[in-house]
């Protein structure tokens, strides 16, 4: 079910190019129009068609969201897994690093990173604001995943089947990746899907500070942060980007739930016996 909704969103977003409106061209005579036939989602502060901007923005926001999720998983899972599995020295060092990263004040780090990135003249960065933003957000978000994964690994490694595998001579890597991972993944999936929504909203916070996706390029996040002032007066400015975020998050969550069930070996067995 979630796939259908998400699929629709992705389709709409990729078809954004079909819109007759230019998302960057202002039209001072048509500012702040409420939704109508000509503009199904209304117009924004510069008279630009909101629907066009929302759809284009979707490309950016979804990209940011997924990228952040990937980054947090890429960093958080290995860190947590190794800490939880090996314990001892490894655990200590990794967890202390995680503690340190947790203590880092996100506000300052964002300011710092944002400014550094502004100075660096690397064309790779300039042409890839999505990756840049995703990197910035991801750097501050992987710790939660790591802790979760570690907790799971701590519990699961004591389980019989792990002990058995070890006795049978399975290599550490095999155990971590193939045996424990599918069992540990439950809470991680829940968390990872929430990362996406978190990432999209964080991006709007970054835009508020001036670092996120820069205008006039639209993103759901920066469309939202501009619209917040006008919640009562021109609610469509906020409702539509917000709605898109809702729908994306919800469908992703449903997919996440589904994935969790798919990975749960117990569930498969019990399904046969009871509901």
């Amino acid at each position, binding site marked *: 079910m979630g796939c259908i909704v998400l699929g629709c969103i992705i389709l709409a977003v990729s078809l954004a190019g079909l819109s007759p409106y230019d998302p960057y061209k202002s039209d001072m005579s048509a500012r702040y129009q409420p939704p109508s036939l000509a503009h199904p989602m209304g117009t924004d502060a510069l008279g630009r068609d909101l629907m066009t901007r929302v759809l284009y923005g979707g490309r950016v926001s979804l990209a940011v969201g997924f990228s952040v999720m990937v980054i947090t998983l890429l960093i958080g899972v290995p860190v947590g897994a190794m800490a939880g599995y090996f314990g001892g020295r490894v655990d200590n060092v990794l967890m202390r690093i995680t503690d340190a990263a947790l203590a880092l004040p996100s506000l300052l780090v964002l300011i710092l990173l944002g400014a550094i990135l502004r100075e660096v003249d690397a064309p790779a960065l300039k042409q890839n604001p999505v990756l840049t933003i995703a990197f910035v957000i991801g750097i501050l978000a992987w710790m939660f995943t790591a802790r979760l994964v570690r907790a799971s690994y701590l519990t699961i490694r004591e389980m019989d089947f792990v002990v058995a595998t070890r006795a049978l001579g399975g290599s550490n890597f095999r155990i971590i990746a193939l045996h424990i991972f599918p069992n540990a993944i439950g809470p991680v999936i829940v968390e990872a899907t929430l990362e996406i929504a978190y990432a999209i909203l964080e991006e709007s916070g970054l835009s508020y500070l001036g670092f996120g996706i*820069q205008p006039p390029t639209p993103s759901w996040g920066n469309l939202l942060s501009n619209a917040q002032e006008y919640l009562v007066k021109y609610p469509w400015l906020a409702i539509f980007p917000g709605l898109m975020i809702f729908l994306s998050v919800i469908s992703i969550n449903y997919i996440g739930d589904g994935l969790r069930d798919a990975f749960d070996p117990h569930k498969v067995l019990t399904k046969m016996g009871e509901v």
Partner: protein
Amino acid sequence: MYKKSMWFTILTILVLVGLLSSGCAKETVAPTIEESVTVPSETESAEIVPTEETAPTEETEKSQIVVVIAEDPPSFNATVNASGFDALVMELVMLGLADLDEEGNAYPELAEELPTVENGGVIIDEENGTMDVTWKLRQDIQWSDGVPVTAEDVVFTYDAVVDPEYGFWINGIDYVDGVEKIDDYTAVVHYNAIYPGYLTQFGGYLMAVWPAHYCDAEQGFTQWDCGFQPLSNGPYLLKEWVQNDHLTFERNPNYYEAGKPAIDEIVVKIIPDEAVRKQMLINGDADLDMWTPENVIVELKDYSDVVEVSLSPVDRWVMRIFFNLAAKGTTDPEATPHPIVSDVRVRRAIRMAIDSATISEEFFRGYADLVWTEFFRPPYNVCDIPQPVYDPEAAAALLEEAGWTDQDGDGVRECHGCTTGAEEGYPMEMEFITYSEYGEALDLTQEFIAEKLGEIGFKLSISRVEGTVLWDTSENGGIEQSGNFDIDIWDDGYSGNDPTDFLWGYYYSEAAIPDYGYNYGRYINPQVDELIDQSYTLDDELRKDIFCQMAKILDEDLPELLLFTTVDANAHSTRLQGVRSNANEIVTWNVADWTLK
């Protein structure tokens, strides 16, 4: 199972969306309903207020107003932080020698009268280029502990300010050799130069006179405790200060103006969010909002029977475009001129492509007045500088003429025969910066200008940075001081009627040295230097002449593009009378004259 919860969720969302959209359909109805609701509560608030008073020992009702501001004042010493919030509370309790009214004219507070050349208060020694200003203090003003305010306090304040350890720097202090007490109520300020800004030397909205017998000189001007528990000689006394929450003031019974102030109690509440402040005004829970922005002014128009907005008659803050005449990242316009904007024709073209009228109307809600010269305020608004025209076609033609054409058809012009020293084919790409704290009006303006300039062949990438990054020292990498920009847009202006210090800071060649002034554009023009030097005189007719010459030169050279002024407004409840917004000070400057209907 999943299906059920999925549909339920979608249903809930639809219901929510429906509610919200029907909410906006009711938009036109809501204000009238609210108006009829707020009117009764407005009269009620006058009755409710006294019941909130603790232990009313007085028989009569105490009148009270609530002022809402965005930040906690750092202290009562507005000189040190200049945040505006400190000035707001300082005006309530402390007086200066003179203050500025909303027209920009000085008027005496602690002084009997303003010292001028005519009344002998100012004695100029033309030969040595020095002057002495004699301040005669009123004899009827006391500190709230009964000790009279004397010249001793003036000398004490001066000594504290110039203390090398804990003092600070204020405008004009470099020209002061010393302050001498002649008698209890007479002090003489000895200047080593002719300084036109002498009237607000120990006054204005940033300075006050501090009590010699109460403040601890050991602690020092910048951190003494009397900046937190001030001794008052002004209309109000500080009753309590709950950090970050509120301050309570009650009227000073010994205030020197009889019968004033009329309002018994003032509560200053710290309400950081603007939307909440606005709602409090509408609800009648707040009587005065500080620094009301344009969009809120427009929204408050719907509630005009409970809220009024006081606009300053003279504007101060001018929105301008700054050009960096030196290449980005450098500060020498001769050695490394900017590849694009160092050609004055390019700057003129940019001016012709900016539709200030539309910007003012649409984004600043008509509250911005177009200006195009620094000298738009009385008494120097006498120069005849032609208003710039909005003509994008002429702008494009001028760019062609200046050697910038688009030969590869990508919509962005390149240098083909340009005279700035840029290489052949150098594209017209620049970074366009502004500061993020202003708000939506400036953000939209920036986007709009970038779009319009894009139409005539520029490619501007937009950046918004924090103010502290923009205006930091050059050794710390501050963008303006280190010249690390192409063009920016932001607002600035001076307080009072005397532009001399301001002009020096922006246009004098020495001020282009990093961290020495604010000539961020690195504009070097010896003629202008000469004129600025000459303007340090008290002869007003001469100054007018000098300034008009300067206006002409600046209009030809266009080191900055002046666009329009932004409003200085304070919204207040209709029951509060006497509020006069003043661009040169903070709105509480005349608090003693306020009354309640």
